[in-house]
Each structure stands twice: as C-alpha cells, then as structure tokens.
C-alpha cells in the first residue's frame, strides 16, 4: 500500500511538472535559429566559396554548428571580430589556407602588370579581359588601366610571351594601411 502511495505521489508530481514544462515549451517557443541570419548578415556576401562552403549562407550555418570562424578571406579580420563578438568566442587569426586565393604575401589586392619591353602587341590579352582594363592595338604596346583592373588573372594565361604578371597594387597615400596589429606588443608587468 505504501509503495502504491509513493508511486502515485511521484507520478502526480511528475505529471504536474510535465504539464508545466509543456506549457512553457509552447509559451517560450523559439522560431528557427536566428543566429544563422545574424551570422549571414555579418558575412560579406561575395559568395566566393573560399571558405570551402558553396556560399555565405551555408558557411553561416556551418559556423552556427561549430565550424571555425576564421575561414572568410574576403571578410578579413573585421568580420572575424564581429562573428567572435556575436558568438562570444575568442578572435582567431585568419586561416592561412583560405587566404592564399586572393592575397598571398601581402593583404593588398593585386593588379595585372605588362612588362612593356616584352609586349609584342598581339591583343590576345585585350580579348581575355572581362572589364576592358587593357589598352592597346595590334602591333602596338599594351598597358593596364590600374584603376579598372580587378586582378582576375584571366589575361595572364593567353599572353604568348609571358609578359603579364600580377603585382600588388603600389602603396599610395590613399590605400596605405597602418598595420598596427603586426607590431609585436609585449606586456611589461
């Protein structure tokens, strides 16, 4: 008899609490996973796939599920910092493997450069250029409009004399960046 009462009492408590939790789960229902939307908003939306995911949204979903936050090369350190703030994790340096595609030695974008002594004026690179950034005519020396060049590499392969190379954009007052993070700071106690 005692055991029956004990079972009954525990059953009643459990049923009461179950009802409470059931009500709470309806009352405090959370729609979807808003974190993915927030992450997606932070990413640069270039859909470049350098992170190894097919686009920014899939990468945002992967980050929400615990993928490393440092794979977005176009976003750079700013994006990593924002994602770290949102998720409450530590800032990580950008992943080197995913950095190589658009920026190798330096973080600056590159533009094509024509070594003008070698140019034979074949116009093949002009046809390859998607943004008409190469100026020239048949049997005349060509040159690059640096302001137009997107650094896409497409003109390098067609050149028969290999006179085009990709060079980092030159430092000017406009694009100079103080790389203060690169200066080692040692904490003195």
């Amino acid at each position, binding site marked *: 008899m*005692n055991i029956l*009462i*004990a079972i009954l*009492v*525990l059953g009643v*408590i*459990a049923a009461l*609490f179950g009802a*409470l*939790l059931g009500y*709470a*789960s309806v009352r*405090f*229902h*959370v729609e979807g996973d*808003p*974190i993915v939307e927030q992450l997606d908003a932070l990413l640069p939306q270039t859909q470049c796939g350098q992170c190894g995911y097919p686009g920014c949204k899939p990468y945002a979903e992967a980050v929400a599920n615990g993928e490393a936050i440092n794979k977005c090369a176009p976003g750079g350190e700013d994006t990593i910092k924002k994602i770290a703030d*949102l*998720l*409450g994790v530590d800032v990580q340096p950008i992943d080197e493997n995913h950095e190589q595609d658009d920026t190798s030695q330096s973080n600056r974008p590159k533009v094509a450069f024509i070594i003008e002594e070698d140019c034979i004026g074949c116009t093949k690179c002009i046809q390859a250029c998607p943004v008409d950034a190469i100026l020239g005519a048949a049997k005349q020396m060509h040159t690059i409009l640096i302001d137009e060049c997107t650094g896409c590499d497409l003109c390098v392969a067609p050149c028969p004399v290999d006179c085009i190379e990709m060079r980092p954009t030159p430092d000017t007052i406009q694009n100079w960046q103080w790389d203060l993070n690169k200066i080692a700071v040692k*904490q003195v*106690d």
Partner: protein
Amino acid sequence: MTDYALLLIGTVLVNNFVLVQFLGLCPFMGVSSRTETAIGMSFATTFVMTLASLLSYLVTTYLLAPLNLEYLTTMSFILVIAVVVQFTEMVVHKTSNSLYRLLGIFLPLITTNCAVLGVALLNLRLQHNFFESIIYGFGAAVGFSLVLIMFSAMREKLTNADVPTPFKGAAIAMITAGLMSLAFMGFSGLVKI
C-alpha cells in the same frame, strides 16, 4: 529579521558553498574562463537555486511529510531541479540567444550541480522554515555567483600573466581556487549560526 540577515551573510561568506563546503565545483572550474559567461551562469544558477529550494520545501512539507514518504526526498528533489533547469533553459533561450550559446552545455548541467541539490537537502537537515529555505537557497546562489565571478576575473588576468610552463592552464587555476578557499576561511567566526 536579524536572523534572516545573519543567515544570508552566513551563507554567502562564512559557509560559502563553493570555497568552504566544496559544492558546485564543476561549473566553478568549467565556466570561469570568461567573465561574461560566468555572469550569465551566475544569474541562471541563482534563479534555479532559489526556485529549487522554494519548490523542494513545498514538496517536502506539503506532500512527502504528511504521507510519511521522507525517503523519497532525494528522488523528488532531483525531479524538481530537473524541471526548474529545463524551465530556465527555455526562458534563457527565448530571452537571450547569445547567452544561451555562451552557456551551452553548462546550462542543462546545472541539473547535476551538486550545490543545487545540496541546498535542498541542507534545508531539510537544518529544518529551515519557508522563508529561511528561500533565503538559504538565495544566499548559497549569491555566494556561488560571488566566487565564480571573482574567480573568472582572476583567470582572465592569469591568461596574460607570465605563468611558469608547468603551472599553465588548469594547474594555476586549481592553485588560485585553493588560495581563494584559504582566504574565505578568514570569514569563519564572523557569524555564529
């Protein structure tokens, strides 16, 4: 009234649950690496502990004691705590998603925080009345929060400190916790309960 104030101070400082009674050590070590997380955890635990000690008092006094079912206390307390933790988890998920992600696995693990069950069982053993139970639970939670936040602040400083290699990480954290415990021994004798 003075009794209640003394009970509160005594629970927070003199009989601190973490540093004097050594209850709830896993979240103390687990979520103390960042102050933000520690603060979130403190609020969640305070909520759970206070509510759990209140509910467990009600369950023992009005359900188990009249039916002579005192042997079911531990079991029903676990039930009460699990429900309160689940409830807290839902509320936190709804109100602050970032806090929910910060606390992660430690939020459901409040269920197994021995300090929470400890409060409920100690309430029973010390024969506290309704208000004393609530104050005892709240005081224990405040004490827990106090040392957790202090400890996390110290650990954040420690990550920048020049710690000898053999002591890096968990080792220095343990030593710090031990020193804090020693320091809290200084409070004994402040309040006689």
